[in-house]
């Protein structure tokens, strides 16, 4: 994974300086880190654990962040890294996924505002590898090139996963569309009246 930190400062920091930097880092960025962790994990308990893990790593490496404005992006990269490690521990990373999704819609629906709960349900249905890519796009605001470099996967794979994940979001967030009835209800979904909640898609 590409190193997005700024390298070791010369001479190293004092413990008091690191302590102050870390306290400031936590105060300034704990909310952003938690929000990203929540979107990655899909639930508050795991998100808080992931947030804690991130700052415990930051304790050891905070001196690597030289520029304050890059601290947040560095922390988000750490969150993502921790999440991916936990994902690999649970099961092998599998390519593909979303095979059961219907053919990709060509047109983007005109959506002015997105329902938060509907978005959570849509994200929960994405396999981890697709969810990470789409969250790197929206949360870390990385380009497809940067995502490919960070994840060490081909650009074509990134563009394919991103497009399929966004197609999934488009279908789920389009309010007038009725979700297909072929799926088992998912614990994470909370769709509107008259709709059959979709199943979690297994990779």
């Amino acid at each position: 994974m590409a190193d997005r930190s700024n390298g070791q400062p010369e001479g190293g920091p004092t413990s008091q300086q690191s302590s102050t930097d870390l306290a400031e880092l936590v105060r300034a960025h704990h909310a952003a880190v938690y929000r990203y962790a929540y979107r990655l994990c899909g639930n508050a308990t795991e998100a808080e654990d992931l947030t804690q893990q991130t700052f415990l790593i930051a304790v050891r490496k905070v001196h690597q962040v030289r520029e304050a404005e890059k601290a947040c992006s560095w922390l988000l990269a750490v969150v993502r890294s921790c999440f991916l490690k936990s994902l690999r521990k649970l099961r092998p990373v599998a390519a593909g996924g979303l095979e059961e999704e219907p053919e990709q819609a060509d047109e983007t629906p005109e959506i002015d505002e997105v329902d938060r709960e509907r978005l959570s349900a849509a994200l929960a249905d994405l396999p981890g590898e697709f969810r990470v890519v789409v969250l790197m796009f929206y949360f870390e605001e990385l380009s497809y090139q940067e995502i490919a470099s960070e994840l060490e996967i081909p650009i074509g794979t990134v563009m394919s996963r991103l497009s399929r994940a966004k197609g999934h979001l488009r279908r789920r967030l389009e309010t007038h569309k009725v979700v297909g009835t072929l799926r088992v209800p998912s614990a994470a979904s909370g769709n509107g009246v008259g709709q059959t909640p979709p199943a979690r898609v297994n990779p």
Partner: protein
Amino acid sequence: MSQNSRYREQIDACRPGTGDLALPALTELARAAETDRALADELARSERFDRAVSTAMHDVPVPAGLLERLEARLAAADVTDAETAGEVALPPAVPARPSRRAILATVLSLAALLLIAIGAMFWPRPGREITNQQLAEMASTWNSKVPTTKWLKLTATSLPPARFAVPVEVRKPVQWQSFDTPDGQNGFVFNLTTGQRPARLYVIASRDKYSLPTTPYRRLEDASGGVAIVAWYSGGLLYVVVVDETGQKLSDYVSEKDIAAILHGLAARPG
């Protein structure tokens, strides 16, 4: 295969409000969109979709007390790490290191104060109904409160978050800075000119309700003092352009939708 299908992956790879159309894998899309109105419209729709999704992505309530729990856990970890590593990183004049109990007691005593502050920060404020007259007055006030010494130059590495990016209908800004409105809403202000007379774009995250279109723009008739104010509201973001029309025109800085012409200029923007 429709044009949209053919270019679907490229459209989806394009981040809103960036120079991504100049990236290698997307130049074909940029060229095609200059002449294909339907493709340009789809690109614009995708950009609006991305902004709306990005706003919702970040809309996650932070649990009460999270900061205190983190600080307590880190304080405990700090003491444990120092003990297990045998580190004594204190200069000679500093008194003995406080005990874990003392550290936790201090953190917990601050927790009560922090809980009140965090509650005030994160408790969702119900949206207000804002009339266009009120918005015009607010925008005039904002203009007088923007610090002139805190502008940042827009570069590839100095940018606000993408969801606050400048829409294609607005002239490319030269400077930016974060901006908090007097009533506590957060966002950014962009300087559209370094000339004598200001022209600025405000992009503010807002839950209030406005009588505004979702695409540029509506002129606020209650603006005064030779200032033109236009606004629109989309994806949880309020966009307000304030232009001092002495020696310049509103249309120098913002236009209504003309995607094909604007995309041509977008493709030439640096990434």
